[in-house]
């Protein structure tokens, strides 16, 4: 077990110029066989490995990552965590995730910088206000916190918003989830990686999986750039490439891959202490601890694996932001990027065993996989350990498409699909 991080350790390292911090996790080489191989070292894959080792004592586990930990969508998202979903299945799942996030810093001994600053969704018309009251009741029935702010209350809380009488998108109030917030995204995956590694999990970076080996309806292992690795259980957690990896095991998925953009401005002094989302303009924004405004928008509206978006969507996202925050118009964008996301017709993920025995699918997170990392990893690990799907995720299995039991969360997914 690696030495735990503490303020005393910080002081001690300061006296030696921070020159002797140990590695957070080993640079493991892949062994020829494992009990469980996890394809993809993103948030869900790493969290699955952590909970397998910690909750179920299964440590003969390898996480195979094509690039490096924190270099994919865990490093590209806009760090918002929330649980204001409308269907009971999703509300239970995402709220479990939020509750795991709340104590994750202490659990991992790694500061994930959870800032509970609330998610403020603007209401741009009297009709949106009416709909929000219905949404509020649904959320309360599901046990999710929510409150509605009048225009005057909102103006006190977020004074920079465009309350001008001639605003193109007038603001009539907001619906808020106070327990929502932002988390330092790469700290989540680093913390899980450190915890999994300390319990004996091998985290193998620069090890791309080129195919899942399945014979007679059963998984035998995976082919990688470093050779074949045998495994009796394979977890696929490769959001953005799910269709491609699943196809190597002969499985078709109901997924289309789209680019989703995000961008940050230059850092400025603190001016925004909540996450603001404007459904009408399709933009949302929060301010990071470094002072940058982190801006997100809608999908580029065509499938792509290119990991970059088009300038038209960048422009419309920024234009939407400036409609609601005119004073941000003089800021400069520092960086803009895109990640590939799995889009499914009902905006809900796929969590469950595959038609091939020994294979578990964790995919289809759409634009919101980051907030689901703790619950996705926890339930995936539980299902592997018990060889059946955890009741919380049973509704999200691949079989729901043949049963017609879709879980339509298009309204709660917020970003236009």
């Amino acid at each position, binding site marked *: 077990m690696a030495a735990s991080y503490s303020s005393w350790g910080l002081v001690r390292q300061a006296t030696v110029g921070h020159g002797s911090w140990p590695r957070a996790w080993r640079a493991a080489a892949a062994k020829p066989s494992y009990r469980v191989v996890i394809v993809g070292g993103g948030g869900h894959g790493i969290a699955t490995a952590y909970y397998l080792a910690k909750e179920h004592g299964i440590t003969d586990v390898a996480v195979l990552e094509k690039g490096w930990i924190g270099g994919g969508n865990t490093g590209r998202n806009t760090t918002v965590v929330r649980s204001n979903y409308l269907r009971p299945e999703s509300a239970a799942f995402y709220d479990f995730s939020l509750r795991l996030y709340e104590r994750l810093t202490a659990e991992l001994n790694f500061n994930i910088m959870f800032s509970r600053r609330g998610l403020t969704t603007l209401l741009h018309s009297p009709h949106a206000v009416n709909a929000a009251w219905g949404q509020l009741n649904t959320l309360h029935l599901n046990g999710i916190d929510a409150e509605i702010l009048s225009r005057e209350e909102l103006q006190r809380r977020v004074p920079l918003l465009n309350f001008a009488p001639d605003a193109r998108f007038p603001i009539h109030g907001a619906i808020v989830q106070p327990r929502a917030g932002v988390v330092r995204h790469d700290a989540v995956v680093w913390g899980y990686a450190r915890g999994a590694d300390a319990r004996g999990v091998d985290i193998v970076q620069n090890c791309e999986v080129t195919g899942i080996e399945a014979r007679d309806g059963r998984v035998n292992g995976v082919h990688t750039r470093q050779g074949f690795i045998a495994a009796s259980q394979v977890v696929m957690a490769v959001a953005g490439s799910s*269709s491609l990896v699943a196809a190597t095991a002969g499985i078709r998925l109901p997924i289309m891959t789209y680019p989703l953009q995000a961008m940050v401005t230059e850092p400025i002094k603190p001016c925004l202490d909540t996450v603001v989302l404007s459904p009408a303009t399709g933009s949302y924004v929060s301010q990071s601890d470094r002072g940058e405004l982190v801006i997100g928008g809608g999908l580029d509206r065509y499938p792509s694996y*290119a990991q970059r978006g088009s300038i038209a969507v960048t422009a419309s996202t920024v234009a939407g932001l400036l409609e609601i925050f005119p004073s941000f118009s003089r800021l400069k964008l520092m960086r803009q990027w895109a990640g590939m996301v799995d889009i499914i017709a009902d905006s809900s993920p796929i969590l469950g065993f595959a038609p091939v025995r020994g294979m578990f699918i964790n995919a289809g997170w759409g634009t919101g996989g980051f907030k689901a990392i703790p619950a996705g990893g926890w339930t995936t690990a539980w299902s592997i350990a018990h060889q059946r799907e955890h009741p919380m995720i049973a509704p999200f299995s691949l079989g729901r498409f043949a049963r017609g039991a879709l879980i339509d969360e298009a309204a709660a997914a917020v970003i236009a699909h």
Partner: protein
Amino acid sequence: MFRINCPWCGIRDHDEFTFGGELRAHAPAWDAPLTGEDLAAQLFMRDNLKGVRHERWLHTSCREWLRVVRDTADHSGVCEATHVRAP
């Protein structure tokens, strides 16, 4: 970003076009006996290939539906397009 060569209008920016889905086998006959699995395969399952694939796009400007050959791994260059129905 990529451009599409519309048979009516010539080479135009992709932003003028609307994606209309990947080209797939025709839908089964209306009275074909279908299981839930068949319906799921038809309605929801997708190839979602990385690389060159055939798709349907609408040129929003001239209202023509097109078959487009496009590389989803790389956006550079011009995608060739043909009419869905001969004019």
